[in-house]
């Protein structure tokens, strides 16, 4: 076969024929249509999230009831979230402990009025001031 014809065949296979009109958009392998969003790839949020300054990994603990919060590849334990399904008296439904287990100091808690209620009550422990620490006999 003439080498000139072979060269033309290769060209037809890999490149679309030239036309005077606007170029036809190419559909990617993961797209079902060549239609493009009017947002042109921009996030629809007013202020889209950028790179997080801190990422915390959340792990199941204690039979998928409680949660352990770690940070980094070394999985440094930061917080422990104790989830109470059976409550006694006025206990909180959820307690946030500092450290890697439920024996760490509690730094926050949450109470649900009921499962279907509209309100969740959150409580934060203020850092102990020197006055309160002295009155409680802490160093």
């Amino acid at each position, binding site marked *: 076969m003439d080498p000139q014809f072979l060269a033309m065949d290769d060209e037809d296979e890999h490149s679309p024929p030239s036309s005077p009109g606007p170029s036809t958009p190419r559909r990617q392998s993961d797209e079902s249509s060549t239609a493009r969003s009017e947002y042109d790839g921009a996030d629809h949020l007013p202020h889209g*999230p950028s790179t997080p300054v*801190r990422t915390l990994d959340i792990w199941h603990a204690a039979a998928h009831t409680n949660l352990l919060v770690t940070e980094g590849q070394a999985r440094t334990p930061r917080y422990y979230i104790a989830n109470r399904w059976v409550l006694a008296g006025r206990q*909180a439904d959820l307690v946030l402990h500092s450290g890697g287990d439920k024996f760490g100091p509690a730094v926050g808690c949450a109470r649900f009025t009921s*499962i279907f209620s509209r309100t969740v009550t959150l409580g934060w422990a203020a850092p102990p001031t020197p006055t309160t620490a002295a009155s409680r006999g802490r160093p």
Partner: protein
Amino acid sequence: MGGAADADDSRISWEAMTRTRAGVHHQWDLSVALPGEASAGRRRRLCWRHTRDVDSTALRYSMQNLQLVECDTGAVLAVFANNGIKSWKKKGKLSLFEAQGEDPEAWERLVLLSAFALVAKLRRRSTVMNGYGS
């Protein structure tokens, strides 16, 4: 904290998080005074919203995918992506995009506590609605 006697502890500051939108696009509003801003009388209006803008490692169609948005500016401050059944050991990932207030630790605790109070509530509600609860 968490016990009968500790519930009246004066060192605990209580805030209410209220649901303002129900259904699939549920939203929970929270108004807080961050450390360093309380003296100026400034309160932040924050809300947790359902989102599907999570990475591929998370379960996209989970009701527990949440993002924390500042109501006044619309800025996304944190995102919790729930792994769901994709992982047995790992619950998910909490990404903090911007530290607010003077104390980053306090902000981190606020985000953690409000997020997982909501996650726990959604989980309990789902369990009861599916007939597995008491």
